[in-house]
């Protein structure tokens, strides 16, 4: 964009604060605010202010969806398939319909419709009931008679690939074009239960391998992980003649509104979606979901509000999961470490759905001229996968970063030095330097060098994630005549603290304290905010918040300028005052200035502008920023070679997210990412019974999660990485903080015991098998 009436030239801080800042010149739209100085020069942004909703959360006052009660509200429950594959010949709901307290009964499966007569996993919805009480609804479910024609099934990925395996889908039912929350290529071949390959190619891999002095190759297998949000999936749907109101525990308030409008043929202005407290999502609450559609249909039928709250078993079976994967990686390198070729083949399973690719780390993390990938989805008779915290890149990094570790050893190059050679990112270079210093990398010994039965090791791994932005993101800032201020957007706080970040951004502009800003979010009555997935919330909504605050401030300055007899451009806002820049003694209190407004309230709505330096790519409402999000993690482990128990003693996580808005909240999120990665590395696994297709651990005790006693010391270091790309220059962190943990632990385990563990989770049995002390168990998928 040329500098003209629509844009102006501005100079932004640029670079990593701890290394030294430079400057970058950008063309900025004229209605965008001036460049924001580095955090060190700011009053509120970059400070660890307490959460705006902290008090409500520690007193139990926060209203989660499961807490919403409406007059006359009914309770919905869903009848779920007990067989992994069956044709439903008949459903008899007559007794359920007559049961006391039952107000609506819905058939989800349709025996007469070949497209809806099949169930393909244990837990698939078959029918649903709304009743006066949950107990009455559950009694009614037990009265529904379903005539199942059992069909052959396959609940294991490797067996599902065999030509004679029972088919999960036919050509009509097999999904395509949507994977793990991302668009995937359409028209991929369907061969038995295998969809794919999805291919990717750069250069000539065969030629690259021919140029290599050394080729390392490995096969890696990862398990199915479930989200285990502590608040179950929940919705309260209230269908009325004048419109539909839905309370939902969702990661995308505005998106669910669109889905509802489309699904039920309503105009957007007749659909309202609200979320107040939101008890975690991690990808699994991104869409309306089958339970959401069921609740709305029940409400329409019963003419009353209906609440559906999944129980923990339903959560585990039918609210999504991180697909299980198998991958084979080959990497060719010259003796100096430079990579000549990478080849990736993968098979993964998201149950009856798509989305089991292993992401783009192998393609994009390291400089390599020749790359080829062939990735396949394998359908099995199990609940559908969905996006989960850094989908694809988490299992992908488990394979890639161990292969790089192996390559370093074969080349006799330190793993950090090898990465200095092949990783083009200056950000990760600095992260490696800081992390190595923190963990004491120079203590790292040869693999398996500790003499006793408990062996220690150090490992490192890296993270790569796209800096996503939702273009369709808007925010409103209002100033009232009494000086009170509100910030409004439909964006939802799923626990990341985005509301507090918005209050900080607005307070910084207006010269107020964050606790003086009322945060009103999670309601589609407000300007449409971004989803809370893809680590894009902060990047998408803090820039329009600052732009809106700046625009409303210009209005207020016009009033104050009249009173002070100066030009509006001579004014600044600081410490609750509006001051003349060159005469800080002269000014008005913020409230005095607001009292001069002509009307009770002034307001500005701003939308997310494009990144000032342009995007790398646009995809509908979403875009990918020029830079990547990095992160380097180091792990220190102690492995008991007699019991096989791996204890992670310390993790150092060095992460970047552009400009950190609230370091304490960000640290919380990184700790959570590390813990989820540790839990994935050592404990979690969905186990399906191969004889019944049922999950045998659909709960929170046999589905083992890392708890407080497995939590290591976690050092979080945040870089300030300025690029002059938006009004806040802030990006996300949730997913990058979850990618490197499992491979860092795996590399540390290798360093401890001298044997590489290529299968997750690294249970005591897996460790003992790797050490050759017990026979290996093949991991189910």
């Amino acid at each position, binding site marked *: 964009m040329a500098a003209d009436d629509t844009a102006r030239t501005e100079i932004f801080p640029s670079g990593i604060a701890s290394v030294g800042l430079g400057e970058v010149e950008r063309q900025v739209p004229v209605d965008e605010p001036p460049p924001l100085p580095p955090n060190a020069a700011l009053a509120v942004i970059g400070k660890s202010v307490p*959460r705006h909703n902290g*008090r409500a959360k520690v*007193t139990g006052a926060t209203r989660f969806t499961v*807490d919403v009660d409406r007059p006359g509200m009914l309770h919905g429950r869903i009848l779920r398939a007990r067989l992994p594959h069956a044709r439903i010949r008949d459903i008899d709901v007559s007794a359920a319909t007559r049961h006391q307290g039952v107000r609506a009964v819905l058939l989800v499966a349709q025996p007469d419709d070949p497209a809806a007569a099949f169930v393909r996993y244990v837990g698939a919805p078959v029918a649903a009931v709304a009743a006066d009480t949950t107990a009455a609804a559950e009694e009614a479910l037990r009265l529904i008679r379903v005539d199942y024609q059992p069909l052959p099934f396959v609940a294991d990925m490797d067996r599902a690939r065999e030509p004679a395996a029972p088919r999960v889908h036919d050509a009509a039912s097999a999904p395509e074009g949507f994977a793990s929350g991302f668009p995937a290529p359409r028209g991929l071949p369907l061969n038995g239960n295998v969809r794919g390959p999805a291919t990717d190619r750069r250069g000539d891999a065969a030629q690259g391998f021919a140029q290599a002095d050394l080729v390392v190759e490995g096969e890696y297998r990862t398990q199915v992980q479930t989200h285990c949000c502590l*608040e179950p999936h929940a919705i309260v749907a209230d269908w009325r003649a004048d419109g539909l109101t839905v309370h939902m525990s969702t990661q995308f308030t505005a998106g669910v509104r669109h889905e509802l409008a489309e699904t039920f043929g309503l105009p957007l202005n007749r659909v309202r979606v609200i979320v107040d407290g939101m008890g975690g999502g991690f990808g699994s609450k991104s869409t309306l979901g089958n339970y959401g559609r069921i609740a709305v249909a029940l409400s329409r039928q019963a003419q009353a509000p209906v609440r559906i709250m999944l129980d*923990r078993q339903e959560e585990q079976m039918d609210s999504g999961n991180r697909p299980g994967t198998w991958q084979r990686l080959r990497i060719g390198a010259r003796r100096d470490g430079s990579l000549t070729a990478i080849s990736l083949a993968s098979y993964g399973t998201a149950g009856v759905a798509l989305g089991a690719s292993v992401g783009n780390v192998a393609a994009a993390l390291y400089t390599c001229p020749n790359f080829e990938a062939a990735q396949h989805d394998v359908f099995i008779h199990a609940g559908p996968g969905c996006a989960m915290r850094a989908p694809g890149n988490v299992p992908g990094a488990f394979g890639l970063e161990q292969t790089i570790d192996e390559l370093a050893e074969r080349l006799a190059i330190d793993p950090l030095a090898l990465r200095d050679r092949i990783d083009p990112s200056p950000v990760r270079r600095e992260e490696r330097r800081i992390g190595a210093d923190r963990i004491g990398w120079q203590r790292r010994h040869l693999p398996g060098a500790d003499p006793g039965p408990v062996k220690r090791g150090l490992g490192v791994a890296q993270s790569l994630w796209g800096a996503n932005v939702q273009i369709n993101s808007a925010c409103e800032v209002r100033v009232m005549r009494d000086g009170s201020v509100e910030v409004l957007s439909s964006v939802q706080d799923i626990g990341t603290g985005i509301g507090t970040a918005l209050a900080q951004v607005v307070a910084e502009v207006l010269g107020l304290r964050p606790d003086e800003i009322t945060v009103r979010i999670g309601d589609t009555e407000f300007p449409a905010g971004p989803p809370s997935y893809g680590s894009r919330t902060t990047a998408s909504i803090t820039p329009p918040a600052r732009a809106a605050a700046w625009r409303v401030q210009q209005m207020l300055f016009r009033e104050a300028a009249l009173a002070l007899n100066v030009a509006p451009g001579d004014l600044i806002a600081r410490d609750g005052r509006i001051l003349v820049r060159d005469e800080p003694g002269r000014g008005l209190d913020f409230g005095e200035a607001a009292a001069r407004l002509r009307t009770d309230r002034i307001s500005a709505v701003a939308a997310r502008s494009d990144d000032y330096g342009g995007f790398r790519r646009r995809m509908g409402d979403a875009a990918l920023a020029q830079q990547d999000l990095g992160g380097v993690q180091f792990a220190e482990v102690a492995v008991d070679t007699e019991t096989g128990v791996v204890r992670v003693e310390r993790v150092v996580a060095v992460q970047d997210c552009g400009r950190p808005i609230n370091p304490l909240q960000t640290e919380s999120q990184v700790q959570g990412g590390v813990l989820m990665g540790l839990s994935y590395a050592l404990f979690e696994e969905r186990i399906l019974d191969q004889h019944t297709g049922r999950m045998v651990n659909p*709960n929170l005790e046999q589905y083992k999660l890392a708890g*407080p*006693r497995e*939590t290591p010391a976690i050092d979080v270091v945040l870089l300030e990485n300025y690029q002059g790309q938006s009004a806040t220059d802030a990006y996300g962190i949730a997913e990058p903080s979850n990618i490197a943990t499992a491979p860092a632990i795996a590399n540390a385990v290798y360093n401890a015991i001298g044997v590489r563990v290529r299968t997750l989770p690294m249970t005591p049995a897996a460790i003992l098998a790797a050490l050759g002390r017990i026979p290996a168990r093949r991991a189910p998928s």
Partner: protein
Amino acid sequence: MTTVETAMIDAWSLVGPAKAAEDGRLAAVGPDAVPLALTVNGVSRALQVEPRTTLAEALRGSLGLTGTKIGCDRGACSACTVLIDGAAVCSCMILAVDVGARRVTTIEGLASGSELHPVQASFIAHDALQCGYCTPGMVMSCAALLERTPDPTAEDVQVAISGHVCRCGTYPHVVAATLAAAKARKV
């Protein structure tokens, strides 16, 4: 025996079948709703519940105290933790009719008026919460810990919250917050 083991045994004696049989309560009621009085946060509350109703359901439903959360409904996540006569108990694992005359304290009753309990204040200061769904139960367990162990070690806190599931991963900040709250109480 550690203090934690003591607390667990106390809790079991509160909710165990021996105690219930002693009261002769089980034989006398159901299946329809029965009248009941519960002492919750210092106030006697009258309610009607079916005997199969757990304390967690009674608190959240009849009494409208939704600060107590249900995450698993089988004692595996501790989100529903309340205090019964001062001991931290999963309220999903005790029937409302079995509570009897014992005093129930929920998250809504922990603060003194507008003054937060030191654990609550410290959770905010240390950002020991993210989504907040496990937080009420976590706060109750940490508050109970400080009553029985006023000067805990980090390991004491880890053990006290070892039954709690926090998928956001707040454990490090919960430990820091609770240790800081213990210090603040002594001042």
